[in-house]
């Protein structure tokens, strides 16, 4: 356990790898405040323990009962910390303003957060559930939420910003290292908050360009296209697919195709193309029994084209024929 506590060789005890231009300044800030804290904390504890031992109650010893008061000392320990916190405030503010001031000429990426998926849209129109970035370029992130509050957090970059419904929020950073990093949602957003993660891939310019040209292509095969949409249109956050019996916040895609399913409003409906289409366009009327208290699914009317809905239906159907029937 102990070696694991010290994590990988390229990380420090406290932090993940420094992978953006901000990381250095923030880690410096952390070390500085840590040392300031230690310089305060250690003498306090030493004094406390020393007084505990030295002045402990014991036979034959009687300390003074007089209340002490020492103006010089009191002014010193009020004024000195004041200067120190002013410095901390100043450094923090300078660093913050640097993070808030957008540089000119950025690579813009649009982020849509939706329970419990991230969707990234690049300048050429490509969409992807993972974040791909060019190394050494200033990247501007333009964020919006389709439902509740989320927060965009990449620990390796030391950046975080809430994604607020009803407005755009922005952030920028410059990745400095190629590699794969974690992106977390860090503002509580309901059932699968802790699964609202994505991977961040930082490429060199060539790799990034290659990614962009590939990501724009919708797969030709209808089933593949359904899966492609499933991953990009925030279906995946609630409806699990391919994991037999797994219970998500919404009904699983497995195990229902071609069978009658019970509805919350009473009665049953055959799970076919029609049901899938109606569920996507008018979800509340199709709510399944047992999911009455689940967060309501938003309608996708206007967001998905007919052929895209067909593709999703084909994908759901394919899951059934692929998995052998269970006993």
């Amino acid at each position: 356990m102990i070696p694991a506590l010290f994590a990988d060789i390229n990380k420090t005890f406290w932090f993940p790898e420094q992978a953006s231009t901000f990381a250095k300044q923030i880690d410096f800030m952390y070390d500085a405040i840590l040392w300031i804290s230690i310089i305060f904390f250690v003498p306090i504890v030493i004094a406390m323990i020393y007084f505990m031992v030295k002045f402990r109650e014991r036979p034959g010893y009687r300390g003074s009962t007089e209340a002490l008061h020492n103006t010089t000392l009191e002014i010193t320990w009020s004024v000195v910390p004041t200067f120190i916190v002013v410095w901390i405030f100043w450094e923090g503010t300078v660093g913050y303003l640097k993070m808030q001031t957008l540089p000119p000429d950025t690579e813009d990426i649009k982020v849509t957060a939706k329970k419990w998926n991230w969707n990234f849209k690049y300048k050429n129109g490509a969409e992807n559930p993972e974040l791909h970035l060019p190394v050494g370029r200033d990247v501007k992130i333009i964020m919006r939420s389709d439902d509740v509050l989320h927060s965009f957090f990449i620990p390796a970059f030391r950046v975080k910003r809430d994604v607020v419904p009803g407005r755009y929020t922005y952030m920028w950073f410059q990745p400095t290292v190629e590699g794969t990093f974690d992106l977390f949602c860090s503002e509580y957003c309901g059932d699968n908050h802790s699964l609202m993660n994505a991977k961040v891939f930082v490429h060199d310019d060539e790799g990034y360009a290659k990614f962009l040209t590939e990501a724009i292509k919708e797969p030709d095969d209808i089933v593949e296209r359904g899966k492609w949409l499933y991953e990009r249109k925030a279906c995946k956050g609630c409806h699990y697919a391919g994991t037999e019996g797994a219970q998500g916040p919404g009904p699983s895609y497995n195990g229902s195709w071609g069978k009658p399913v019970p509805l919350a409003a009473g009665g049953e409906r055959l799970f076919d193309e029609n049901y899938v289409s109606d569920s996507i366009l008018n979800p509340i009327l199709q709510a399944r029994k047992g999911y009455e208290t689940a967060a309501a699914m938003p309608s996708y009317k206007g967001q998905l084209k007919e052929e895209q809905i067909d593709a999703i239906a084909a994908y759901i159907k394919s899951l059934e024929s692929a998995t052998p029937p269970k006993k």
Partner: protein
Amino acid sequence: MSVVTKPVTMPAPSKEAGTEDNYLTHSSGFLSWALTLDHKRIGVMYLACIMSAFALGGCLAMMIRLHLWNPNLDPSQAWLTNKQYNQVFTLHGAVMVFLFIIPSIPAALGNFLLPIMLGSKDVAFPRLNLGSFYLWVCGACFFLFSIFATGLDTGWTFYTPYSIESQGPIVAATMGVFVLGFSSIFTGLNFIVTINTMRPPGMTWFRMPLFLWAVYSTSIIQVLATPVLGITMLLLAAERVLGIGIFDAKLNGDPVAFQHFFWFYSHPAVYIMILPAMGIISELMSVHSHKGIFGYRMIAYSSVAIALFGFLVWGHHMFTAGMADVTAIVFSALTFTVSIPSAIKVFNWVGTMYKGTVSLNTPMLYALAFIFLFTIGGLTGLFLGALSMDMHLHDTYFVVAHFHYVMMGGTLVAFLGGLFHWWPKMTGKMFNDFWGIVSAAIVFVGFNLTFLPQFVLGTRGMPRRYASYQLEFQDLHRLSTIGALMLGMGLLVAGLTLLHSLFYGKKAPRNPWGGATLEWECSSPPPHDNFSSAPAVGDPYEFGNIEYDSKTGGYIKKK
């Protein structure tokens, strides 16, 4: 107030009176408790209810930690489903904040001690006091029912718009909080009036025990800030029921406005929680060092300073929420101002021990543990107040660890210290000091083991409120869970030590610790009317004339 001036005829306090009248035996029967106007009985009833809430919140904390023993990357294999986990942490936070920490010290210990420390018979409005208690009970029932009935899962912060669209019983829960808020306001009002009007002759503001300064400052916050919480909760309920469009972006509302409203109360509420704890520590450090408090005036002023600054810093909960840069910078600057009065207090407490006679008993060890833990809690606040640093640490386990160091390492540990300190006064029984010390040691070690790893989890990027986590975080999570189990054990030992004393404890002397404040001048437990005649008021931190008396096992004041 007539209650003070009316001398109550009482049998002259006899030396060792086992038959002496006290508030516990003054009358009996269920109604004599349920309808009592006696502040001491109300305090004891609060204590019992609050400790039940604490036990409930503690069990929920254990569930959280046990669930996080494994990374739960496959939710179908996890002990709790994600939804259940969310409900558990919501319940843990809400119960601990609204039912335990906020009322803990003011309502339980404050109610019991405030009038006695003032040498008076009761608070200014005894009926209002009983009313506050029943409002608490009513709010608690409302709240618990609504949470247990269908599962509230918004987090204790009720952030919009999730709380608008969540299927949980939000309206019922907000009404519970609303009612609890009134309980808090009435208690605060009562204490303010009592301290303003019922101080005995001779007790000027600067001869008041520091605990009362702290309770007074707390009461001001309760009266001024809690109504805003009430308003916020009503607006939230109205948003859900009527769709008025103030917080919901779909109706052109602003979700961030809710955060402003919410933290305008909930940040001062942090000081509602910590200020009384600081008051307890001031008493404990001085009494158990048998020495006047270092820098009395600075401690008193810093309580008021914290109460006032506390109103101006709520924005530091929202640095990443999308406020304007100027707003964020101003809030960051104001946040740092709070650190200074807190630092002054810590220095003063440590300075109090210097050249004193330090008794290392249970209450004192809890007080020393408080200083250690609260200092860590305060210093880690410096990281979070610095804007650029907060961009990384916000909403991670670093924050979780930070506020547990302040709320639990601070308020809870001080509350336990105070409970041990005044237990002999409240119950008339001495507890077993050895087991008390053992409990303090286990709590101290367990606490650090639980929350120190969480700082590291936070800097490494583990977000809070996560039902599952990546494998790299597992070791630290496991350390934390082991610590939590230990902490639970320590608290159990503390509880059992106190319960044991009720049945087998020695009779407590009038002044077991050598305190100089007025509560040590009436018998243990105090008689129904507290004092037969108004006690003489002296310096609350003058220990020169207090001597140990081996006959009673307590201390007596030499005239």
